[in-house]
């Protein structure tokens, strides 16, 4: 694992060791943070689409009921990467273990939405709008989280999503950019100067009376210009940041490039699909193992890659709902209720579990079949929005949610 400034600060090592014996690559790391984006707080939201099986990701290996209900897909006790004697990580998520030990990674189990829908579509919609049960909400919570503080020279990259289409989470009044690939973010080639076509399109959309396309067009060309001068592609992954192959790793690598290029990213969003394991979920190996490995390795790589910029970064993961506590007849799991959320970041008091564990005894299960929700996902997000991003107007971010006062926070931020 790479040693970074936060580790030094947390352990007080820099003070003890003294600068004369600190290797040059470390001093570089120490001072890099001062040159790029000083003080800017960032929130990165990662969505596991398809309803990840939280019980096989952070395994309650201290519960016999878990093993009773999952005869073929449970993660055996001896394979679990133990965290606190009761919970443990799936063995393919070894990349998370050091982050936990360095106390940067916190885990909230049994978190989720109070709405009881078991439809992917609705549940994702509710989690992304931040208003469970209310379909008429037009914007997403992450957009509202940074709305209302528009400065005249706000960056077009305040809100960035990796992917071809803008996710619901980021829809709203703050202009948000969706991109598949940084390299493709230009018209008529990515030369140092704008092409004739680029200038023409810019003028066309600038003057268009089509209100939707006019707005998007303006945002687009503003962003293109900024990216051209910042040139994020020149930032190669830091030593030790090994992004696995695949779309998710690519997305996070580019998120890191944008942050390092200092284009003003405040919130970023990326997603990873394929968690809907109705059939042959696997246990230590198999479908969930492969996906959990890709997921954790990508996030760990992002963490390493950000280096000292990670100090002001919080990463939150979520999935629309959990899966049935019992395995089904196809060695898979069906749509359930509560799930696990990871919170990783410089200001995070990690290395411990948050939230109340409801238990897996039959009478403790939600509707007799699923892990019960004891922490509303909005409680987790509220704390990050208020105490990290600094937006205290939570009634606007999560309208109708009455547990967004500081006393309801889990206090995972130090």
């Amino acid at each position, binding site marked *: 694992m790479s040693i970074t400034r936060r580790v030094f600060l947390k352990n007080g090592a820099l003070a003890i060791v003294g600068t004369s014996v600190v290797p040059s690559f470390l001093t570089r790391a120490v001072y890099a943070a001062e040159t790029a984006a000083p003080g800017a707080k960032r929130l990165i939201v990662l969505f596991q689409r*398809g309803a990840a099986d939280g019980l096989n990701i952070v395994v309650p290996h201290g519960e016999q009921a878990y093993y009773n209900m999952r005869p073929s897909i449970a993660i055996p006790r001896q394979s679990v990467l133990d965290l606190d004697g009761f919970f443990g990580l799936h*063995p*393919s998520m070894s990349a998370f273990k050091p982050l936990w030990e360095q106390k940067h990674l916190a885990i909230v189990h049994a978190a989720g939405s109070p709405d009881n829908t*078991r*439809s*992917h*579509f609705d549940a994702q919609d509710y989690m992304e709008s931040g208003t469970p049960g209310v379909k008429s909400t037009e914007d997403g919570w992450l957009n509202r989280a940074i709305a209302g503080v528009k400065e005249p020279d706000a960056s077009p990259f305040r809100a960035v999503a990796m*992917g*071809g*289409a*803008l996710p619901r989470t980021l*829809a709203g009044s703050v202009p948000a*950019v*969706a*991109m*598949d690939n940084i390299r*493709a*973010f*230009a*018209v*008529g080639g990515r030369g140092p100067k704008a092409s*004739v*076509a680029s200038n*023409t*399109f810019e*003028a*066309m*959309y600038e*003057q*268009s*009376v*089509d209100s*939707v*396309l006019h707005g*998007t*067009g303006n*945002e*687009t060309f503003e962003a*293109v210009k900024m990216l051209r001068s910042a040139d994020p592609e020149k930032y190669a992954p830091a030593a030790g940041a*090994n992004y*696995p*192959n*695949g*779309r998710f790793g*690519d997305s996070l690598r580019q998120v890191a490039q944008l942050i390092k290029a200092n284009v003003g990213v405040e919130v970023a969003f990326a997603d990873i*699909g*394929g968690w809907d394991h*109705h*059939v042959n979920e696997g246990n230590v190996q198999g*479908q969930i193992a*492969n996906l959990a*490995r*890709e997921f954790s*390795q990508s996030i760990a790589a992002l963490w390493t890659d950000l280096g000292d910029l990670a100090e002001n970064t919080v990463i939150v993961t979520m999935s629309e709902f959990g899966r049935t506590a019992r395995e*089904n*007849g*196809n060695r898979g799991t*069906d*749509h359930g209720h509560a799930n696990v959320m990871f919170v990783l970041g410089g200001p995070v008091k990690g290395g411990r579990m948050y939230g109340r564990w409801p238990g897996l005894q039959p009478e403790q299960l939600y*509707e007799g079949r699923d892990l019960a929700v004891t922490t509303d996902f909005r409680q987790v997000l509220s704390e990050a929005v208020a105490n990290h991003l600094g937006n205290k107007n939570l009634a606007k971010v999560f309208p109708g949610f009455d547990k967004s006062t500081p006393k309801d926070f889990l206090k995972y931020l130090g």
Partner: protein
Amino acid sequence: MPAARKQLILLGLIVLISTAVLFAGDKKSKSHHSDSSASAAVAPMEDDKRIVHALNRFTFGVRPGDVERVRAEGLDRWFDEQLHPEKIDDGALESRLAPFHTLKMSTKEMVENFPPPQVLKAIENGRMSMPHDPAKKAVYESRMAAYQQRQQNKEDKAAVDNTPSANAENSTAKAQPAAVTQTDADPKDVPNEMSAGNDPSTADQRKQQKIRENAMYADLDTDRLLKLPPDERYKAILKMPVDERLDLAKTYKGPRAMQLVDDMKPEQRETVEAMIQPQAVLGELAEAKLLRAIYSNRQLDEVMTDFWFNHFNVFIGKGPDRYMVSAYERDVIRPHALGKFKDILAATAKSPAMLFYLDNWQSVGPNSELALYGPGRFAGRRGRFPRPRPQAKNRPSGLNENYAREIMELHTLGVDGGYTQKDVTELAKVLTGWTIEKPQLGGGFKFNERAHEPGPKYVLGRKIGEHGEKEGEEMLDVLAHHPATAKFISRKLAMRFVSDNPPQTLVDRMTDTFLKKDGDIREVLRTMFHSPEFWAADAYRAKMKTPFEFVASAVRASGADIQNALPLVGTLNRMGMPLYAMQPPTGYSMKAEAWVNSSALLNRMNFALQLASGKLPGTSLDPQALIPGPAPADSQAALASLEQSILAGDVSMQTHTVLQKQLGDPQISQRRLDDPDKKPNYGAIAGLIMGSPEFQRR
């Protein structure tokens, strides 16, 4: 500065006058400047605008000359004709599609021609034999060798174990750009030997070295190979030892494989591709979808086939679905595209593609014979008394609710259709036993009585008595005729054809027809066509094109000739709309907000420029031919002519003014002292028009 401003005003005036003059005598362009402020909700469209509107909604885009053709025929007659595609000749499209053999194959034939791992395993274990036909045999040998190498790699990797890149093979499979190779459902299922051996962390360095060397030598050999005439090249490949063919596959992966099969006969090309790149052959389906949208005369039939496929979405990357989707679209969706809703619902419910995609094939009633007694042949029935073996492993024994839920939420009632979790569970019981005969080998629908949950079921307040397969048929019929279904389907059709938020009065009228006419989609569309809301001025260009609609309409407007649609398939992958590869059962959104964002807009502009300049691979387009008839007198006239053919003459003043200013740019005017007659760059102008705000809408 004031002088510059004066000039600008003057220029603006000239523009106004010249456009007015240009279009004054032109009846086609009564509505030259689309004026949003004037479009009161009740105002109807003018005649020619009606034609453009209808073409925009019922086809994949207006081609040059379409407006004139429909005007000559009469709009109502044209629409009626489109409602009866069987009466429309489509010979030209058929000959374009003729080389794609997989389109006509049954799922079983697909499996035979492109053996999946299960078949290869069966041959390896002696349970099946190699085919005799030399071409087929060569394909099998190649696949077998690739399969064995993959197995070997897996073992090697298992030995290396938990290093960060131990998963590289699977992850790479996911990163494949071509949509049809996506495999999130089960990475093991996809032949992807091309990425094997590239794993830098594999312990066996010497083996790596050997692979690198082989690839190098393969490079040398194939250089020679490429110089051979196509027929000899084909024979040479067939004669190659299997190992060499594998190396060939590694060298010629992705788009480079095209060079290998260049100019070969279609069947030769298929054989070679099946050997080295089976995904490419399966990609024929995506190519065909684009070619149909672009070239079919049965446009409404295509639009509706697209609509229903998206409604009853199936993801091609999920296991054997890759072999099933061709037959699904051809035999299940297309024949019912303009038919009755109950028929298409019933057909999808019994299709292997859907049964596999939403897991129903594995759903087993908890109290069924299969669950209680296991798969033994004599269990249950013949007077013996086998003991229940609930612990028996390795066979499905439980209820799977996935399909039952989606059928109500997405296919019929809609999410607000008034059903409960209990209804989902009960419907799942009703549908137990609806399964597939040997899904991995291309089998069809089968009702397995032994997997069917016994006893009565209660769905939507209705008691379903015990009738085996008939229970499901009964429930599908109930769902197909349910008022919530009529409303849900009518609204979705109105969203496709009218606007993202269609007027309730229109939806009500369509719902009424749906209920009165037994869910006859043709009649529902007719009702919509004859409704004032469809023709309301604010419906004109109210719909944002999806990436698929945008690409198809751009090619149609350009009159380009597509020899190879794969680059278009790749374009759609980049635009976030890979064909047949929408993973969730929701299908793609057809609302504007899903498709309007910076990245998407840039992709559209870049595609427009590439297409119109004639630089899109696999596409021939002569930019000069974008303007039919005699050459325009000057660049002004050229611009007017291009606006006429690409936007049916209906361009906003803002866009027109910007374009007109650009005519002076040397890259566009191509004005040269030594060649004063050189024509302006029509391709560049056309690309700018196709990237304009107007062209993003339909």
